[in-house]
């Protein structure tokens, strides 16, 4: 039977599917592959310049994930991909992400948060589908669109909201803001404002994991790192350099491309010579997979395989998730360039609605239970906003803390004492 990830010609091993339950059908059937860049074929018709043949399959070394849900429904004995508990966990996480981002928009327009705020509406399936499979010690590295990654990884909504309000109770003491979510407790290593600069950091976290296993002899260290980034980043040098290094040293990392087809106002097709990003994996010696990023169950199945692969020490995987952001690039983006029909097409594939439908149709849950979850999340967010509102702003004394882990780095002052020993230093009034 064909495997989910087939290795490129250079690296020999075929990928052996680990099926948690035996009634799993194989993940791919090459003939029923989902069409790539579904809605953007319309864009291609509108702009006649592109000659791209979307049906073209490359050398056979990568496959798209088939439409599992549809297949499942057609068998006589329904074999489900998730249990009820898992389904509710996924639903709650996605609703939390969506409701949080909607609350952010409200708060922004009410003047509670400032600067660049990038919302994740529409992409929840990727964050939930991947991160809910991780252990606490696994790491997640994100970009500026990181609120929902933080929430999925377990950072409390209160801490994230406070951070956005710039309060001292925020997860980064108010010093990071929307684009710099960090949590050492949950192993969320950013939050990066420049695209691409998080990918080497993620590669480093994966390197640490391998180092622990092989040099420090911590035999059970199988921590995996997930690096999330967008389609625009895939044209950046750091992306390619890290694909190379990760494959070279078989680092336990999964590169997750959240291809929402737009980099601010730049369409992916206008920026990329070959827009099929998953094909770039095999060029570096790792499997490349394309998955429908609006379907949390499909994403989850692909994620399971990729993460398991990394845990076993077989190296990295490049996963391209085709998704869409329902809002503009940021709250400052008027979002005038995107075609309304394209937006409508993806709005109809809202991941939360899709999961809800799946849960109800497969008798995993009912309207009442799901509504109760919605209400619970609303209350959670009210509490988070209230907490953030009531939290104190950072005092002046916080200004110079955390610049250095060892504050002797501020040097020796004219009086012979280290600057950090100066009482004015903690007041934040010292001149460094």
């Amino acid at each position, binding site marked *: 039977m064909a495997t989910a990830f087939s290795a490129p010609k250079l690296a020999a091993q075929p990928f052996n599917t680990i099926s948690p339950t035996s009634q799993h059908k194989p993940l791919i059937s090459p003939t029923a592959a989902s069409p790539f860049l579904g809605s953007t074929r319309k864009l291609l018709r509108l702009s006649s310049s592109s000659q791209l043949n979307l049906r073209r399959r490359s050398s056979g070394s990568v496959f798209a994930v088939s439409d599992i849900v549809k297949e499942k429904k057609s068998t006589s004995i329904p074999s489900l991909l998730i249990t009820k508990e898992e389904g509710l966990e996924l639903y709650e996480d996605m609703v939390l992400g969506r409701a949080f981002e909607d609350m952010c928009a409200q708060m922004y327009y009410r003047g509670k948060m400032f600067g660049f705020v990038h919302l994740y509406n529409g992409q929840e399936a990727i964050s939930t589908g991947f991160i809910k499979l991780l252990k606490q*010690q696994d*790491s997640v*590295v994100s970009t500026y669109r990181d609120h929902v990654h933080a929430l999925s990884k377990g950072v409390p909504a209160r801490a994230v909201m406070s951070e956005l309000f710039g309060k001292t109770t*925020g997860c*980064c*003491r108010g*010093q*990071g803001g929307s684009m*710099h979510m*960090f949590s*050492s407790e949950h192993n969320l*290593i*950013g*939050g*990066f*404002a*420049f695209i691409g*600069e998080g*990918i*080497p*950091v*993620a*590669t*480093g*976290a*994966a*390197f*640490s*994991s*391998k*180092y*622990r296993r*092989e*040099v*420090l002899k911590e035999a059970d260290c199988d921590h995996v790192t997930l690096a999330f980034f967008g389609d625009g980043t895939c044209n950046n*040098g*750091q992306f390619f*350099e*890290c694909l*190379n*290094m990760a494959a070279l040293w078989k680092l336990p990392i999964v590169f997750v491309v959240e291809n929402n087809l737009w980099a601010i106002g730049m369409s992916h097709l206008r920026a990329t010579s070959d827009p099929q990003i998953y094909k770039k994996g095999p060029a570096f010696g790792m499997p490349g997979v394309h998955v429908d990023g609006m379907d949390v169950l499909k994403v989850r199945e692909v994620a399971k395989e990729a993460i398991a692969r990394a845990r076993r020490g077989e190296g990295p995987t490049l996963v391209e998730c085709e998704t869409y952001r329902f809002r503009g690039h940021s709250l400052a983006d008027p979002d005038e360039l995107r075609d309304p029909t394209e937006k409508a097409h993806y709005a109809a594939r809202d991941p939360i609605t899709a999961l809800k439908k799946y849960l109800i149709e497969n008798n995993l849950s009912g309207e009442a239970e799901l509504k109760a979850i919605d209400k619970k999340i609303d209350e959670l967010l009210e509490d988070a906003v209230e907490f953030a509102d009531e939290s104190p702003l950072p005092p002046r004394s916080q200004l110079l*803390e*955390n*610049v*250095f*882990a*060892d*504050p*002797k*780095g501020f*040097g*020796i002052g*004219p*009086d*012979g*004492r*280290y600057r*950090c*020993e100066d009482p004015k230093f903690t007041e934040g009034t010292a001149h*460094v």
Partner: protein
Amino acid sequence: MAAIFQGVGAAATLSSSPSNSFVPKKFLTSPRRSFCVPSSVVVRSDGSVNFDLNSKSRRAQQLVANATKADSSAASSSSNPGHELLLFEALREGLEEEMERDPCVCVMGEDVGHYGGSYKVTKDLAKKFGDLRVLDTPIAENSFTGMGIGAAMTGLRPVVEGMNMGFLLLAFNQISNNCGMLHYTSGGQFTIPIVIRGPGGVGRQLGAEHSQRLESYFQSIPGIQMVACSTPYNAKGLMKAAIRSENPVILFEHVLLYNLKERIPDEDYICNLEEAEMVRPGEHVTILTYSRMRYHVMQAAKTLVNKGYDPEVIDIRSLKPFDLYTIGNSVKKTHRVLIVEECMRTGGIGASLTAAITENFNDYLDAPIMCLSSQDVPTPYAGTLEEWTVVQPAQIVTAVEQLCQ
């Protein structure tokens, strides 16, 4: 000859300062981190041991002891002969000792492993510690520097080598945004105990791109420390201190200084990252310098002494932050300052140092500060032109004569 060893390192465990309390907490709570061996202590030349690291009096005594050194040679007491080696060997020795001491210390860079480093600083280390601890990277400075930063954030202590400091221009994104900033933007949650090192400076007709002085470009980045070594003694000491420091440190070496020979102590010692080094005490004029220019200054000093001048020469060593105590004491004594550096005229270390001295010690100056820097030109290939871009001893002599009129 006084043998002064100074302990810094994980001083957080000994210091009672609240702002240091982050470090011990991380050691206790986070399972990811491996634990540093506690740092060394201050051993005085009379054998007494002092754990009080922040005492002003102790530092003053140490500076006085330094000032009595007649030359820049290492502190090796008569009871302990020490051993002789070249500067690049001293760097390697420091690195090797730290790697033995702490298994989390690792090296990454181009040709550091099997090749042993383009200037042999990591020679044979890969054979000893393995290919993962001394990692040969592909030619991707931005990414492997970022990788080092990510590894540092997750518990390792990488030493990233730029084959030539100039190549680190490609890593500027990672050094500025991540290395310098992430401790702050994460609210103190992640430390980045990385060392970024490599040879820079003007060599022998290496051409413009291989002759760059990056200290001026990096000096504005908040959150990093910069040090420049100039002798085998301080090379080893600074390398060890940098590795033990919880802050990101950039260690500047110089291409032309790798073959300097000196006798250094056998014992474990480190050099304080934030302190300047008194090279030659004097009365008439303070000459501040670092790296290779130290030797041009000392050469000029010989001429000046013959002419009846008594220059005080200080190797500032710490390019960021400046040791304003040592420098200030000198200015208060001599009232005249000459800065000799290899950096460019515009926006260089000398420019910042001039500003810092003017701000803090203006009342003590009898004359405007003179700053001799390299010309603002891309370093030419031709030998004669190259010679004229950097400061030569004759210029230093003239400057001192002018200053002391």
